[in-house]
């Protein structure tokens, strides 16, 4: 039990540390705006004291609800629950964010909800196909069993495309590279993208926390496939994610419909290829 609690808090703290590292490295690069080392944390704390007169009860309800679901998903992940249970809790979280965006009545909220639904369908489809592939190889969907089998048998040998497609879900959730749907509170870039989000102030801060927690969940899920001990595999996956965060600065963003097409092709496509390979060959 103690191990699970330590993992829970370690994952929660690791994602802000990743963003702080990203922010620090990026601000050292030529031509970038200069920021404080703890800028992502400052931004989060600042948001808590901002007051939005237009935000109603629903904005707070949906943001707190999504944050709670993300924390539940994180606990289930570190405790080694069934992969599909974690996916179902994460989908509840995503649906709350989307519903909150749509119910805001704000134009940017509706745009955000539309893009959110598109992203939701893609990552849910990819996750379900990936789950089928994982079950075919491991014979179980329990994350602690998958982790144990990875260490002993190297599951990733049979699930290379599944791993990549799950990593692309992480990129989609982080609004990175060609999988950037232009949604919500990631505001690290110098020239802001068209960030469409109805949340602001306090509710945006809670959504930001939920997103960080969700990123931690996906990092932990992905780390189960690396055939080394748990802490090392988590650090490896985190460093790869940090590399992609930095690489994002050099990749031009695309229009969100193209991002959706690319996400279908890469995340969904690779998951299906791995699935077909496992079942027919």
């Amino acid at each position, binding site marked *: 039990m103690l191990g699970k609690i330590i993992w829970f808090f370690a994952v929660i703290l690791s994602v802000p540390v990743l963003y702080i590292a990203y922010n620090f490295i990026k601000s050292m690069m030529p031509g*970038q705006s*200069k*920021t404080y080392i703890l800028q992502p944390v*400052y931004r989060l*704390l*600042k948001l808590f004291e901002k*007051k939005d007169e237009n935000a109603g009860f629903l904005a707070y309800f949906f943001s707190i609800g999504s944050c709670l679901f993300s924390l539940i998903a994180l606990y289930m992940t570190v405790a080694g629950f069934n992969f599909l249970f974690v996916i179902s809790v994460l989908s509840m979280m995503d649906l709350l964010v989307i519903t909150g965006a749509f119910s805001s009545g704000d134009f940017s909220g509706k745009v955000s909800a539309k893009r959110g639904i598109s992203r939701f369908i893609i990552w849910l489809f990819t996750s379900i196909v990936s789950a089928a592939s994982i079950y075919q190889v491991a014979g179980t969907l329990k994350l602690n069993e998958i982790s144990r089998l990875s260490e002993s048998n190297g599951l990733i040998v049979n699930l290379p495309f599944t791993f990549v497609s799950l990593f692309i879900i992480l990129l989609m959730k982080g609004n990175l590279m060609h999988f950037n749907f232009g949604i919500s509170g990631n*505001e690290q870039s110098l020239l*802001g993208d068209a*960030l469409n989000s109805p949340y602001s102030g306090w509710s945006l801060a809670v959504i930001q926390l939920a997103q960080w927690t969700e990123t931690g969940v996906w990092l932990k899920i992905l780390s189960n496939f690396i055939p080394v001990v748990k802490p090392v595999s988590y650090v490896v996956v985190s460093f790869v994610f940090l590399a992609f965060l930095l690489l994002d600065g050099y990749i031009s963003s695309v229009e969100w419909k193209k991002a959706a097409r690319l996400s279908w092709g890469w995340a969904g496509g690779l998951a299906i290829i791995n699935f077909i390979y496992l079942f027919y060959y």
Partner: protein
Amino acid sequence: MKWLNKIRIRSISVYVVQAGGCRDCALQFSMALSVNSKKKGITVTGNPKHADCLLVCGCINEKSKEKIIEIYDKIPYPKAVIAVGACACSGSLFRRENSQLYAAEEVLPVNSWIRGCTPGQAEILEAIVRAMEMVKETD
């Protein structure tokens, strides 16, 4: 709550409105961010809901006036408005009797004015930080 005010000044999200004109003020601001290393923590955002500060550049005309007010209303409190350049401050040489152009203070409650065509890069960043400091006092 001194520490909270300090945090607010260390993370300022700016929404830039190009109301009209030559766009040089907005360009100066972008260059200031990449060149100036003394003022830290200022970032640009594309969503008024995430912004702390509204930077108005160029002449405000009848068409852009409504949009600017709409954007201003979406920014959560505490917020600051800064008029950048001669066009936003007074209409500059484009302002005539019936030109239907507005100075920024005729449309919004402006916290800070940066005059000049074009204003210096360091002045723009300085004004943003000062304006946010003033906002905390008035709130």
